[in-house]
């Protein structure tokens, strides 16, 4: 591998677009460099489930052709991207990490893909994930776990571990993730990357294979805050195909990221959530988090502690609402129209084929949640479980609303711990679920939230994520505060946190 290609994969999305726009490299060269990088390191990382080299090169050439014709192109034209395998892309396998959809090629594009194409973004392929986005480690993928580029024996987070790992391993400068309870932010935190869960309704869900409709939200994964903002802007905004999409202009996220990069946060009021620290949090994580809070003060922000008393019930409410919706959303996987079919041998009835297929096609975590949700919705239990969980959801929204009367953004660690070893929590679902303690409240309330690197935990040398939360439709605040923190830390570290990651062994 030449130095040039090595350089190309190390660029941020913003830099990559600049290189292509100035003609210093073609989009095709950029795509090839990334495909080479995938070929060299993905055997070890396993971020991708499907690499669409042909499609990527065709899209890249189109960008080059447009440039040759002098056509105006967007700020991400020619930039490669890794797409979480939960997002429908016409003609490209979309498995959701499940045997159930092995070989299924959607006949349509999700809105996110449509917008990426329109922006000239080059989709390299589909990334690994916990089956149907249920998990915090990608170990629940039917196609094997993804490995954390910082330490290949550790989890890259989940469910979007593939997208985060691809970005962290320089296989793509950008990725799309989806976040139902933290599936963008937790992987970002444990891989030292940036991940944003936009306001619910800020990015269209059309073509996002639903796990929990009222919580799912697609968003950007990247190595810098500005890159995330550019991707956010490319995919965000109202979509008439998604009834829950917000019909209002997208907040000015790119402008906010640029403003934040100027460095000062004077006048910004930051709240530290009292309930999201203390017992159960890894000391090294807490230490880096408190340093980040100090940094916010140094940058001019006013920091106060705020209390969100109902956050303690968030995890329980989440594990009723999300499984309930999933039990209904995943009912369609019944072997009748697409995907896996088991038992169609003339001996079994349609109902038996449905049952056999679902028994064979879903993994244990998906089955666990379908059963949980089916139970929670069943007659006689609905009020006690689903109904109560919805009430908790309202109380959590109220906690947020009260907090935002005093502060502009809230902060917490993104995860209680750094990346844990692969296999260490697989047999203990509750321990796995606790990873999402800090991220879940934003999903329940529908607000915006970001995770960005705030250093390496002194106890294990692994990345720690700082979570910034903002009210719905105030996503720009995340970018302003995030970019300011990022700039200050880069000055301190002499570059992006990822520059401190160990080099991955490249396969010749």
């Amino acid at each position, binding site marked *: 591998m030449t130095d040039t290609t090595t350089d190309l994969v190390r660029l941020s999305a913003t830099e990559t677009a600049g290189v292509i726009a100035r003609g210093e490299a073609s989009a095709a060269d950029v795509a090839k460099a990334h495909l080479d990088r995938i070929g060299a390191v993905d055997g070890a990382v396993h971020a991708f489930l499907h690499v669409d080299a042909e499609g990527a090169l065709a899209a890249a050439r189109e960008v080059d052709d447009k440039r040759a014709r002098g056509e105006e192109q967007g700020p991400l034209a020619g930039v490669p991207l890794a797409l979480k395998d939960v997002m429908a892309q016409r003609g490209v396998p979309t498995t*959701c990490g499940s045997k159930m959809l092995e070989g299924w090629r959607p006949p*349509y594009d999700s809105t996110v893909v449509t917008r990426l194409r329109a922006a000239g973004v080059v989709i390299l392929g589909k990334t690994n994930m916990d089956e149907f986005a249920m998990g915090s480690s990608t170990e629940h993928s039917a196609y094997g776990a993804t490995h954390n580029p910082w330490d290949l024996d550790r989890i890259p987070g989940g469910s979007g571990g593939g997208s985060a790992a691809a970005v962290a391993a320089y296989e793509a400068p950008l990725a799309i993730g989806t976040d139902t309870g933290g599936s963008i932010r937790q992987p970002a935190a444990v891989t030292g990357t940036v991940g944003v869960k936009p306001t619910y309704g800020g990015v269209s869900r*059309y073509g996002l294979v639903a796990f929990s409709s009222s919580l799912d939200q697609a968003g950007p994964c990247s190595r810098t805050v500005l890159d995330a903002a550019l991707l956010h802007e490319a995919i965000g905004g109202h979509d008439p195909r998604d009834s829950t999409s917000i019909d209002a202009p997208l907040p000015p996220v790119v402008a906010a990221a640029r403003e934040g990069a100027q460095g000062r946060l004077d006048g910004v009021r930051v709240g530290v959530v009292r309930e999201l620290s203390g017992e159960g949090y890894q000391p090294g994580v807490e230490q880096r988090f408190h340093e980040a809070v100090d940094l916010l003060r140094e940058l001019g922000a006013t920091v106060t502690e705020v209390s969100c008393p109902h956050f303690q019930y968030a995890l329980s409410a989440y594990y009723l609402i999300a499984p309930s*919706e999933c039990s*209904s959303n995943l*009912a369609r996987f*019944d072997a009748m129209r697409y995907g896996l079919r088991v038992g169609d041998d003339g001996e079994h009835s349609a109902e038996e084929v449905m049952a056999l297929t679902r028994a064979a096609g879903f993994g244990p975590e998906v089955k666990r949640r379908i059963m949980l949700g089916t139970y929670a919705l069943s007659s006689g239990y609905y009020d006690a479980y689903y109904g109560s969980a919805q009430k908790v959801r309202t109380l959590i929204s109220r906690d947020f609303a009260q907090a935002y009367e005093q502060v502009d953004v809230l902060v917490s660690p993104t995860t209680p711990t750094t990346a844990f070893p692969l296999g260490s929590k697989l047999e203990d679902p509750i321990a796995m679920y606790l990873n999402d303690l800090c991220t879940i409240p934003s999903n329940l309330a529908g607000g915006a939230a970001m995770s960005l690197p705030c250093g390496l935990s002194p106890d294990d040398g692994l990345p720690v994520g700082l979570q910034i939360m903002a009210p719905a439709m105030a996503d720009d605040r995340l970018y302003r505060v995030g970019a300011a923190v990022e700039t200050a830390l880069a000055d301190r570290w002499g570059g992006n946190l990822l520059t401190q990651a160990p080099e991955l062994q490249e396969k010749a």
Partner: protein
Amino acid sequence: MKTVEPDLVPYDEAVAAYDVVMGIEVHVELSTASKMFCGCSTAFGAEPNTQTCPTCLGLPGSLPVLNQQAVESAIRIGLALGCDVAEWCRFARKNYFYPDMPKNFQTSQYDEPICFDGATTVEVEGREFVIPIERAHMEEDTGKSLHVGGATGRIHGADHSLVDYNRAGIPLIEIVTKPIEGTGALAPQVARAYVAHLRDLLRSLGVSDVRMEQGSLRADLNVSLRRAPEAPFGTRSETKNVNSLRSVERAVRYEISRHAGIIDAGMKVTQETRHWHEDTGITTAGRSKEQAEDYRYFPEPDLVPVAPERAWVEQLKAALPEPPAVRRPRLQAGWGFSDLEMRDVLNVGALDLIEQTVAAGTAPAAARKWWLTELARRANEQGVELDALPVTPAHVATVQSLVDAGELNDKLARQVFEGVLAGEGTPEQVVEKRGLKLVSDDGALTAAVEEALAANPDVVAKVRGGKHQAAGALVGAVMKATKGQADAARVRELLLERIGVDH
């Protein structure tokens, strides 16, 4: 194990011994251009699975978008049935597995219907019955299963099944009554009258094709019996998807006799769904509801709540067509029909047809005559509803105007209708092709008249002698000679003129 059912009790004995309670659920397919949650066409009869998209096929990642026209139709139906319109309501998911349901849940409304608490009045044998309306809610239709290889077309015994998803996602409104009590022996007729009333109402609203034979309006009939009106409700059966007015009446009647037989035998009525068999006139057991399916309803998270603005609802209310209870007496008075005549008009479902015929310029009595005699007879022969005939009110108006102009007589007019029914074209085309014009050319008539006079000197003499009625024989001769294509009145005039007597 299935036990043998006891004998039916004759209907009169059944209704003498028991008090009947009914509940009727009617599903109406709306005639919107596109489906409930996607842009696919709703046209009936297309090649299977050609009117589908990711959304109505329930493909992974697809999402519903509510058809606003369907919401408007639902509100108008509710208002026409005297319902309140919800200020805020949601869709819910009804979860159950079945191959004709692409998502394995039906997007419906559960405890928050868009319209609720109404009432409407029907008339049977001069008595008015108030039908209380529980709710009218929106939902999507399922696909249609075709079971191949079984004897009955039902899934049991079939080799394989085919599913057509063209129907999946067609907008439906389900109109549910509260228990209908106090109908006594008239229960089957009240049920029929109610469904007929809904059909007329929905047609006047222009929200549905209401073609029962195509399934765009179908009724589920709940029937139960109890010893006395004061007693608690008995166990009900639900006869599903009854799709003609006649069948509604027959199915209720049958179920009353069947329930009475079971109760008389000291047995218990099973709560179950039943299938109606048009050919044999009986119902048979379907799915037992003893292990009632748990549909695990919950609010549909992919759709936002529906909150119809009050001003809009008021606007829709103000623009509703005249209610039948007001419209009927108005039309009857305007047309000068007797109560008996009006009842016949309603019974054959000719009200709209006559109204449109009159609007096209025909005298009410003439319009009634054609629709209630010749055309009703034809419809009856063909076993279709009157409005399903290819003859339109405009056709009737044309034919009657030709009669009025003396170009057709009734006999020829009937032949014109015959031609239209046989697909020979418009009345004008049939007249042309069949050569059905009355002979009004006096030259041609005069020749026939002369011939008749010459051939019947004795009759001519009688007429001259003052026996004017004897002229009938001469008229007959002329009509025979002109193959009936002469205007008899004109013939009589010419004859008397030639004979030289006053007429």
